């Protein structure tokens, strides 16, 4: 168990914009679990949220496994926001699945989305 850091403590350069659809929410959950930061805005830069290249590689694997698609890797490393990533993922999802990518149980429970957020317990994805 790790205690999540509040986004407000990080001095982000842009205001918080919440994730828009279910795909973005799902991605934000995966980001939050890896970064132990909450909440994650749709335009927040992964590296500004405290991410580094090693965490990005871990997160990429989380996303591959959770969504069952392998989005263009450059998105996470070069244009790393939830909104950009959702666009890259959406291109790959078959139309029938474009709405709701189902969570996969083997990767652990994502943190509960919340706008209050600070101090939420988070279990890091993929840790055994």
């Amino acid at each position: 168990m790790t205690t999540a850091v509040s986004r407000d403590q990080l001095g982000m350069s842009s205001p918080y914009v919440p994730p828009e659809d279910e795909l973005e929410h799902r991605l934000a959950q995966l980001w939050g679990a890896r970064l132990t930061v909450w909440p994650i805005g749709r335009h927040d830069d992964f590296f500004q949220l405290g991410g580094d290249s090693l965490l990005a590689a871990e997160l990429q694997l989380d996303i591959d496994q959770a969504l069952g698609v392998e989005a263009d890797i450059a998105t996470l490393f070069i244009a790393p926001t939830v909104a950009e990533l959702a666009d890259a993922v959406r291109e790959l999802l078959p139309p029938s699945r474009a709405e709701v990518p189902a969570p996969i149980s083997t990767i652990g429970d994502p943190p509960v989305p919340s706008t209050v957020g600070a101090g939420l317990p988070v279990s890091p994805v993929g840790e055994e």
Partner: protein
Amino acid sequence: MSTPAAGGSALSGSAYPDLGDLSRIDLADPMLLASDRRYEVWDRLRRHRPVHWQSVADAGTADGFWSVTRYADVCRVLADHARFTSERGTLLNLLGRRDPAAGQQMAATDPPRHGRMRLPVQRAMGLSSARNYEREVRAGVRLLLADHAAGGPFDAVTMLAGLPLTVLGPLLGVPTADWPELARLAAMCTAEDDPAYQLPEGAEATLRRGHRALFGYFSDLARKRARQGGDDLVSLLLRMDVDGQRLGRGAVVSNCYSLLLGASVTLPHVPTAALAHLAGTDRYAHWARRPDLLNSGVEEALRWASPASHFMRVARHPVELSGVTVAAGEAVVAWLGSANRDPAVFSQPDRFDVRRTPNRHLAFGTGRHYCIGSHLARLALRLFFAELFATFESLTPDGEPVRVRSTFLSGYQRLPLRGQPRRRDER
């Protein structure tokens, strides 16, 4: 005249002459390292200030760093992993910052975990593996030389840019089409201050972009290997069991990155440094005529070039080095390039002597973190010089060489040469 060292030195400045001058030396200045003045500066530091503190304003949690320039001190700092950790940044550009690769990438991991990660990779890159690759590497080297075998002007740096991937590409299973781009990204990560590689946004942005693009590349490669399996190094890292656990994806990718940078740093810059010195003199022909001196000459080229100028460590406990006490938590930069010119160990250190034996240079470092690719690097360098000598009777300078601007990488960005091909019956 006395300038107390800011970092907790036990010695007063009066122990050293020439203090005022030496105090102003900026060892973090890429321009200094890009000029031959570095040898003079290192020489004076070795003699007068073997353990030298430099304050730095803008380096995260650090307020400066120590430099050691003597062979004995450099060995000590690199080899004594109980007192000097590699987990708080190993290069000057990480001074005062958290190293996200700590404990995950071999170069940034201390024993005992380091050994458990290193052993399987070391086996795969060892002597027997080097022999298996000999034919492939020789073919690659011939290909690099082929374009210039007819003679005429060429840039040695451009020609040699393909050498690291000629060696490492097959080991990592990287497609040949990707080699030029990987070489360019590696250059952005090791010589971010150099105008040839720097992005318009500046050095910091260049380093960040190159670094992330390489991590992205290797993440993608790891994805494919995880799916298909393979007998390359990426697959080996994915399968590896360290302390009962698989390496995380970040650790796998970070080690690939580190291997590529290691190869990119050493390989091209050793021959170019040697050729910059030999071209236009009869020393080239002398060495070329003596195949029995191929190996000792390659060791001398390694010493001469010292392409990795420094490695950094952080003291875990207070340590005394040449009479100066380094406090716990302070960074120490070990200047390999200086150690390799230390007259206490090398007689006439500024002479390129292909017969030099013994030649205990530190170009590959020393201790547990000794370059894991040294066997492959030596193989590639020996093959390169053998093929070069078979191709050219002589080499002459053909314009101004330009050095790489970097605090870490010592080498050339441009080295225009003209080759005189050997007659066929001589080959």
